[in-house]
């Protein structure tokens, strides 16, 4: 058995120390050593985007990053996305618009979308598609996800925006 190595890093805004076997991925360290199971896995080979999270504000596939590489970095997981008890606008719209069906891919989508809106507060549909193209969702057909990103972006810009009626009820 490998002896453990200890690292220090910022996790969801808090100083964190953790010791783990050095071959572990960041995904495994978060789920198994820090009990943060909000980060999911779909392949553990970097194929599906399910384990995406933010490292220093940039989206990273945590299954392809060693836990040791997190030393000194700022890591944000789905558990740290809300501002206290107040959900992030993306979390609200994903929940309210049905962008999370089974919800398994949602943490990855949410954090990648957060990164997108940081860089591009008013993204076009094509930009959203491009930004989310590394995340697979089998439930939604992605459309409710686009709509949730667009609604959250508008709210974050402080604009009044109403979802088209046909997004919820279908076309007349």
């Amino acid at each position, binding site marked *: 058995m490998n002896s453990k190595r200890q690292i220090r890093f910022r996790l969801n805004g808090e100083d964190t120390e953790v010791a783990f076997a050095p071959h572990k991925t960041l995904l495994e360290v978060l789920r198994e050593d820090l009990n943060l199971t909000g980060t999911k896995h779909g392949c553990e080979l970097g194929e599906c985007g399910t384990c995406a999270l933010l490292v220093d504000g940039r989206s990273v596939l945590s299954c392809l990053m060693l836990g040791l590489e997190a030393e000194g970095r700022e890591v944000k997981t789905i558990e740290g996305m*809300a501002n206290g008890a107040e959900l992030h606008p993306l979390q609200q719209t994903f*929940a309210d618009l049905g962008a999370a069906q089974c919800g398994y891919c949602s*943490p990855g989508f949410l954090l990648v979308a957060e990164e997108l809106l940081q860089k591009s507060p008013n993204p076009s549909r094509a930009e959203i598609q491009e930004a989310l*193209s590394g995340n697979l969702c089998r439930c939604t057909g*992605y459309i409710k996800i686009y709509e949730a990103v667009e609604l959250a972006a508008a709210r974050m810009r402080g604009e009044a925006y109403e979802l088209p009626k046909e997004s919820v009820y279908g076309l007349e």
Partner: protein
Amino acid sequence: MMSNNASNNDRLNVVGKPFRKVDARAKCVGQTKFADDIVLPRMLFCRMLRSHVPHALIKSIDVSKALAVPGVLAVITGKDLPIPYGILPVSQDEHALCIDKVRFVGDPVAAVAAIDEDAAFDAMNLIEVEYEPLNTISSIEEAVLIDEPRIHEYGDSGNVHKKVSLEFGNVEEGFAEADLVREDVFFYEGNTHLPMEQHAAVAQFDADQKLTLWSSTQTPHYVHRALAKVLEMPASHIRVIATPNGGGFGGKSDPFNHEVAVCKLAMITGRPVKVTLTREEVFYCHRGRHPVLMKVKTGVKNDGAITAMHFQSFLDGGAYGSYGVASTFYTGALQTVTYEVPRYKFQGLRAFTNKPPCGPKRGHGTPQPRYALEVHLDKIAEQLRIDPVEIRRQHLVAPNSVTANYLRIGSMGLGKCIDKVVEGSDWKNRFAGWDPANRKLPFGKGIGIACSSYICGAGLPIYWNNMPQSGVQLRLDRQGGVCVMCGSTDIGQGSDSILAYIVAEILGIDPFDIRVVTADTDLTPVDLGSYSSRVTLMTGNAAIQAAERARELLVMAVAEKLGLPIENLSLAERRVFDVENPQVGVSFADAVVLAESKFGTIGTVGSYKPPHSPGKYKGSGVGPSPAYSYSAAVAEVDVNPDTGIVVVERVWIAHDIGRSINPMLVMGQVEGSVYMGLGEILMEEMTYRTNRNVVHKFPSLLEYKSPTTMEMCDVKTYLIEDPDPNGPYGAKEVGQGPLLPVPPAVANAVYNAVGVRIDEVPITPEKVMRALKDKARGRDPRYGPAGVPAVAWPDPLRVLTPAEGGDGTEMPRVAVHS
């Protein structure tokens, strides 16, 4: 007859409104506990050794080196779990761990429990298995031709698992009456569910000898039954809890070997045991779409009216039975529920092959024949020079009718669905007839239409019984709390929320006031599971019954207290009040106190059992449903004639939902179904290196191609609300049906775009290029199978149709032999 409140639709407060799902926020903050998120003290980890050979006798298994690995607490093999199981009573052909032989690459032979995954993995690799290879069966054609070695010692013959042959009316008479008889052959490649969550399970065996299994399963009740059988324990000592499924689509509907294995390991070690499958192992679990080879022969009048249809399907079942017998019948069941088919013959054959077992995937056994039928109809329409819209629109099955194969149709909104997509897509201006001279779209651009239908729950349970298919229990407490308990399993479709919406509607409270407890065999009444699009209709009806019974108790108690007639009282906005004088009333919580004071503790139950089917012949158990949903789709494609790449630009889809309990969730199911249909028609395929050990070509999420955001098309959705008397508030299904028209609509659009028929799913660029090259050389501009294997079919079981005065029973065999 149960009330479905359909008459009160104008006064609905919850039903029909786009509430968020009751579990949606938990899913967006990382709080939802999926099976692999469960961690218990002293928990062990399980890994399973799987066969690397496709077909072999197991000569010996030596686990001594594995047991010697530090941290390993137990290793089990087939002899530890000798009792077979399987989802269908007629196919009890699986063992948790193979005993005498392995039947596909991925078949498990041993399971290890260790203190961590690394130790379990190392130990797994030290297990020594000696195999004696057997010849393999890798295709339908081989299975039909080669009887030995048999993959299983049961089945109809050799490697043929099941053969069915049914004839409703005399199809030869129908063909004789036809102006045109056309025959086509199609192949639909297998594909898989690919849920984002890999299957996982945790088992715990208590000191008091009770076993608990948490598992990502769509069918906790069936898992419960299988565990009781295989572990030889009273079911009352076993508790199965289905965790929220991270996607199912049918892939988590069988009792699985890994579930049995962790239970056994927990019992041996006395410690909790978890298993989480790798993505590669999920491909081996499979139970996905059967590859189906099909031949369809249809007689039509010059106006497109069908006189008779003969449908043959050949299913590649893979290595085990799974749901396969039902799948086989489903490939022949629903051809009759869209367009009038007065005489109908179905012959189906399921083969065993040395590949991962096939089973139910979204649409279970019906997307393959629906694709064949809808492309076949398009070809007939061209031959008859009829608009493909009209050949469908003019010959629809009537509502409230019984089909030739004895399926009772209730509401039928397909005509309205067709009208919507035809109008939305501007079909009349863009299709412009079959004559190329009249084309309006440029070469490479095309448009195609297809329709479909799906069941709203199977009429019969998987094992024969006379009990309800769904039960709901409701508990009201004196603080005003309401808890709804039901065995149904939320796989993302929103079944927990549907319970809350319906109970909230009837009790006049907010859906978020309600505590929903589901999918726990200790706590919840049985619901058979999340399959066959049964959940909204069946749990919804059960919830209505339970809630109306609770409502009645509340109303009686409040009426007595206020001195009002019962019929004056209404429940809304968390109050029970006088409809004539709304200020007079009590709060919901006070109403519960009054009821509890009068009647004692308040709890009610509701249950649902589908109506009897008019079909009574052998084989009539597959196809009947309380209601049928309908869909129509128009696809618009761009085909690049230089590369063969097909881009689906837009799909217009209309779905006859009966009534939306929550339109936003219905929209999500329609869009998700279009997405999955798009994946099936364009890229998804389970394919094997048949010359190299029948190994799966690409058991990974990267190489098994599925649509990303970049391939997903624009979707224009129409919801048609024509309430069905059997549905809760008139609701029908939406989880599976809208997938069905998408593959054939795209195939028909590809033909419209470049004039080649791709009679094989998926439509890959290679196939399009082959067909385009053939077209350029003046050959048949088609890519697809040449024919079907010659099979000695049994004499069909003959049934007189309702129009012929039949009573749903089969005719005596001796009298009809010809």
